[in-house]
């Protein structure tokens, strides 16, 4: 159990660090949007894993709010991004 949880923590950390690297480096705005979506999903998975290990349900509303409103940023950026914007 502990070994599996440590391995899971390392893999969650690798996913989060890779998405943060992609947010910082880019190269385009859409790459950053995708990477921020991955970071949000990783945070949701970590919250849920902590709930499942410690057997409580305190942060389920946080996961529900992230699932409902994580879409807003990416959709607004993708909808109103100018065609010639390549930065």
């Amino acid at each position, binding site marked *: *159990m502990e070994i*599996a*949880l440590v*391995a*899971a*923590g*390392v*893999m*969650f950390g*690798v*996913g*989060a*660090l*890779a*998405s943060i*690297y*992609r947010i910082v480096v880019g190269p*385009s705005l*859409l*790459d950053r*949007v*995708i*990477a921020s*979506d*991955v970071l949000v*999903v*990783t945070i*949701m*998975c970590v919250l*849920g*894993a902590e*709930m*499942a*290990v410690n*057997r*409580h*349900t305190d942060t*389920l*509303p946080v*996961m*529900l709010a992230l*699932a*409902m409103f*994580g*879409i807003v940023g*990416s*959709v607004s950026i*993708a*909808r109103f*991004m100018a*065609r010639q*914007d*390549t930065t």
Partner: protein
Amino acid sequence: MSAELSDALTAAFIVVSAFLCAAAGIGLLRFPDVLSRLHAATKPQILGLGLIVLDVAVSNISLGTVVFAIAILFFQGLTAPISAHMVGRAAYRGDHLRRDLIVTDELADAVQRADARDRAEASRDDRDDPRD
């Protein structure tokens, strides 16, 4: 359910979900353009989160937890394809893709037909203008 089996199931679900998150991160690092990075990034959004939510639901099962789990899965399944579709559409329209990596481009025909139709309508409107 015995405690050992429940613990093993919890650990297995968490490890699979963490593997999906790590695979998404590595795919974000290694894939060459926006569309392939989008392919890598959408894997944990449904499957990884579904495994974690199922894990929470089976580790302390009650009516409220199951209702929350179904609501989370419903809203994530509603919003994740919308955002992926919008980002992919913006990537295609904004030329953020490498066309030499695409095997087939089925959208190009539709875009060409739409452009031709727009041009035809524009020229017809120009002809119609003096009559108005």
